């Protein structure tokens, strides 16, 4: 990690490190946390009343996907540009299990999630040998391999036509199976569970070691941590959460297409995570909400070229608001509160 080729001179990610290091929270902060948590839950529960339910479900899935990416990007300093492999790999596995065995969808999604973690082991093992920008390129290339396999293995995946007619079986509850409004509430607990798991991962001792590795790998190694193993485990956990999100996405849409494993999907989730704020975890939710709603709006607006808008937004965010939406807000709030306590 001492050389330009792999990691750049010194890492300067604008990360809200205080959030990670300060684990003993003051009563005031913990009060705010509960307030935020409650607000978040209310928003999650109310969403399909204000937004078309399938779109609300899309937001929830992408939000968890963005969070899973942020575990790697924000807490390990590893930019995975191939996360579509896990989202899409799980989507296919979930879809196949649901189509062929007709099990209730949470079971199928769990199978997809396990599959994503399974393929993450070799990919992660190879990829973590590279760091920094190398890691991004290597993961991208591996994801492309998954894409080619999904495209070629037509008998199983349906190839270009996609895997169609994935059922939403849910213990025989008809409303959940036919109405997207009810499906949202059936799927939401899994999403929230995934988010909670992500939060646990980064706030555990394990998460703190990850941050230590991110900030100074040689020191972590000197302290006796097996840096590579930690990274692989983080990679596999992140892939599992991405898989959970992808599996639910497949069920929600009722089919799986090659788009799910394409590199543009990897790019989209990076966009969301960065837009929301690297290393903020919850920023991914904001980023996902923003992009999904924007794309949905643009699809009906008659404006050609969504990339012009998303690309410009992305360039502006990277140049001017590197903390992302959530990160910028948190930073300003934090500063004001700090100023307040000083008085």
């Amino acid at each position: 990690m001492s050389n330009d080729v792999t990691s750049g001179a010194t890492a300067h990610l604008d990360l809200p490190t205080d959030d990670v290091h300060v684990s003993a929270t003051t009563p005031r902060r913990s009060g705010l946390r509960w307030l935020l948590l409650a607000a978040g839950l209310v928003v999650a529960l109310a969403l399909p009343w204000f937004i078309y339910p399938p779109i609300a479900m899309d937001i929830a899935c992408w939000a968890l996907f963005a969070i899973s990416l942020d575990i790697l990007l924000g807490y390990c300093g590893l930019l995975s540009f191939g996360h579509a492999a896990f989202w899409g790999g799980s989507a296919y596995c979930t879809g196949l299990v649901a189509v062929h065995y007709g099990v209730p969808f949470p079971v199928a999604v769990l199978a997809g999630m396990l599959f994503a973690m399974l393929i993450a082991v070799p990919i992660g093992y190879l990829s973590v040998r590279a760091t920094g920008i190398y890691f991004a390129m290597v993961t991208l290339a591996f994801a492309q391999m998954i894409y080619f396999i999904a495209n070629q293995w037509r008998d199983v995946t349906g190839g270009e036509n996609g895997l169609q007619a994935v059922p939403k079986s849910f213990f025989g509850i008809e409303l959940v199976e036919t109405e997207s409004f009810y499906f949202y509430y059936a799927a939401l607990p899994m999403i929230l569970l995934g988010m909670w798991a992500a939060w646990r991962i980064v706030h555990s001792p394990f998460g703190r070691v990850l941050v230590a590795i991110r900030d100074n790998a040689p020191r972590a190694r000197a302290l006796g941590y097996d840096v590579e193993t930690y990274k692989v485990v983080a990679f596999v956990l992140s892939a599992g959460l991405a898989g959970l999100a992808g599996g639910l996405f497949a069920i929600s849409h009722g089919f799986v297409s090659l788009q799910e494993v394409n590199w543009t999907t990897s790019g989209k989730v990076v966009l969301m995570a960065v837009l929301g704020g690297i290393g903020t975890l919850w920023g991914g939710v904001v980023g996902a909400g923003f992009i999904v709603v924007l794309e949905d709006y643009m699809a009906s607006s008659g404006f050609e070229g969504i990339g012009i808008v998303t690309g410009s937004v992305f360039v502006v965010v990277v140049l001017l608001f590197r903390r992302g939406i959530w990160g910028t807000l948190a930073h300003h709030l934090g500063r004001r509160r700090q100023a307040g306590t000083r008085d």
Partner: protein
Amino acid sequence: MAMNELLQYTIQGLAAGSFYALAALGLAVIFGVLGVVNFAHGACYMLGAVVAAVLQDTLGLGFWPALLVVPVLLFLFGVVIERLLVRWLVGLDPLYNFLLTFGLTLLLVDLVKRQYGVSGLPYERPEVLTGQIEVGGVGLPIYQLFVFGFSLLICALVWLLMTRTRVGMIVRAATERSDLARALGINVGRWVTPVFGFGIALAGIAGVLAAPFRAITADMGSNFIIILFAVVVIGGLGSIVGAVVAGFLVGLVEAFGQAYAPTYAQIMIFVLMAVVVLVRPAGLFGREEAAR
């Protein structure tokens, strides 16, 4: 017969590799001096072809002048991008510039789509370069030979520039031994902008060369950039020679893969990359200690 085919596939592979080699060279030089992996490199390759087609359509600019004019225009484009955008992120984590150029790619591709449509642009080839020449009873397409020869020439010129001029030596030192270069107090600062433009111009040359030979669409760089990443991982990002050699190597793997195992041709490139990452993480020509 088998020998004939071998020769034909070799030429085809080297021609395909020429595009990768030129573009990878640009990518490597930019990375060396700025520490930036330019995701927009595929988009710049696309711009090279699109600009050549548009100039031919509007001004009647032919292929030969385009080989000179388009790289100059792309050089200027690169200078503007560096001054306006990339500059502000140098010194931060290189991921930011990777992300910036990713956003730029989305923007450029959709701008071209909006302006020039999606079905592609026509391009007329120079008459001299059409047809085949017979070599020992084998018909070899002249254009492919030309692409290979021309890109070798460009690579040789770049090599001369790197080894015989002061600027070049500074750039090369920065690319291949950035730590040493810094330790010795070599200042690359004022070369940053022109080097970025130069790297973009190399992608532009690849684009012009592709114009008569490949479909000119806004998306032509999307697949290209991903293979290009595999190329630089195989060659080693910090190596100028590595970029060129890996470029041609990947072109050959592609051509022979297509000939003998067409379904797996593209996967083979990524398998090769995986093997290289496993055995030599720094790439075939990268310095081993650089990977850790």
